């Protein structure tokens, strides 16, 4: 039964929404989660690559939602040279469809109520205060009251905007993406591949994430300000025609990854933003699943505390912001300024980077080893990277 009133309403049942909902409910809050689509996790707008260490704190690892285990990353530079990195910890290619649902099931176990096919269309405000949400369900507009709204409505987020938060990102801070799931391949199932270069994928990269030894997510993300004349689909088609001329496409999906720093405002009175909606993705890799769950756990806990204390003012909710910054938000800022440097990287630089990787024995690979090689070989590049650290430290004050 749907009630008229909950402590917390979560909009969106992606990883951010379901984790925030669960952690709020665990601490005693009553929580309703509304999802627009018929099923969480669908359509899958994701390459599905995550690290074991990243997801393990949130859910017991289950074969049901793991397509393959990754031990090796292969980087290929514009001149076609490749380097292999082992020893970076175990990674997985997920089945997001099942994974997202499993996260919702965990939330439900803790008492969260989920409604699918419920499209949130507005906030209920009284005396300018957020008091609940309006949603379309089974052909009707329904209202539900709450003290706190958690907007976990993804890149396409509008809930934050309704609350007066500026959520638009600039063109250079969004990667526009196309991905095919390809069948009929012959791949090493434990190796994910990345292709760089301004001719291949300007301001981004192409990925091959195997789901089995015959199938893979093959996609591209390119920087938004570089995608006007030639779009991501054209780049990806060129690549696929060359690399996998005989493959069959079993799934096509479009989408985007915000690659900015976290939004300036992620809380206001009676509302918190979390996940892609708050722009909490790693700006260099575009990886969001783990980062948004980390943010959502903090948001959920702070939400529950707000319920206990009865304080839903921004002043209290800012605790979520402070803890996020300490955990990953500040690092994300550094990553964002490093990404700015990568946007201007010439193909020659990419070639060098892969050369440095080649010098490190695969099983000894670590970021530290890469930095050491890179400092020797391309001091200017390393100076740029170092500068981003300095710049963001100054901004932090």
């Amino acid at each position, binding site marked *: 039964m749907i009630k008229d009133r909950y402590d917390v309403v979560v909009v969106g049942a992606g990883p951010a929404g379901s984790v925030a909902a669960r952690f709020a409910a665990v601490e005693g809050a009553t929580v309703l989660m509304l999802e627009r689509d018929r099923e969480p996790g669908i359509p899958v707008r994701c390459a599905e690559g995550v690290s074991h260490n990243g997801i393990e704190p949130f859910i017991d690892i289950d074969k049901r939602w793991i397509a393959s285990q990754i031990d090796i990353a292969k980087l290929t530079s514009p001149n076609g040279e490749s380097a292999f990195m082992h020893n970076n910890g175990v990674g997985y290619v997920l089945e997001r469809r099942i994974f997202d649902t499993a996260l919702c099931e965990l939330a439900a176990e803790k008492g969260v109520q989920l409604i699918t096919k419920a499209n949130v269309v507005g906030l209920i405000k009284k005396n300018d205060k957020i008091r609940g949400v309006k949603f379309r369900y089974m052909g009707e507009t329904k209202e539900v009251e709450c003290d706190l709204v958690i907007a976990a409505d993804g890149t396409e987020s509008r809930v934050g905007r309704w609350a007066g938060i500026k959520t638009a990102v600039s*063109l250079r801070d969004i990667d526009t993406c196309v991905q095919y799931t390809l069948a009929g391949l012959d791949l090493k199932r434990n190796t994910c591949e990345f292709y760089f270069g301004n001719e291949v994928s300007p301001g981004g990269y192409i990925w091959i994430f195997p789901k089995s030894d015959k199938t893979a997510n093959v996609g591209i993300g390119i920087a938004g300000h570089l995608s006007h004349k030639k*779009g991501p*689909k054209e780049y990806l088609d060129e690549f696929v025609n060359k690399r996998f001329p005989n493959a069959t496409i079993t799934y096509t999906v479009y989408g*985007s990854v915000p690659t900015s720093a976290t939004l300036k405002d992620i809380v206001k009175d009676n509302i918190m933003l979390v996940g892609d909606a708050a722009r909490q993705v790693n700006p260099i890799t575009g990886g969001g699943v783990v980062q948004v769950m980390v943010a959502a756990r903090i948001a959920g806990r702070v939400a529950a505390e707000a319920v206990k204390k009865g304080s839903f003012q921004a002043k209290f909710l800012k605790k979520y912001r402070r803890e996020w910054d300490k955990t990953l938000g500040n690092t994300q800022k550094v990553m964002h300024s490093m990404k700015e440097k990568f946007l201007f990287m010439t193909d020659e630089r990419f070639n060098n980077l892969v050369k440095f990787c080649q010098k490190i024995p695969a099983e000894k690979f670590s970021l530290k080893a890469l930095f050491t090689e890179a400092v020797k070989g391309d001091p200017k590049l390393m100076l740029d990277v170092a500068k981003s650290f300095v710049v963001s430290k100054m901004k932090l004050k």
Partner: protein
Amino acid sequence: MKINHELCDICGTCVAVCPADAIIVSEYKVEIDNHICTNCLNCLKVCPIKAIREG
């Protein structure tokens, strides 16, 4: 702005870059409110399938 609904995948990329909040997404459709739209062309530039054009 006009959307070619036969191409549109309802991915929401256009919404993320719209400074005017002129774009509405539902499970079935993306729509642009041309009264609010400021013609900045951000949506048209980033649409991964080029489903948006001027007009």
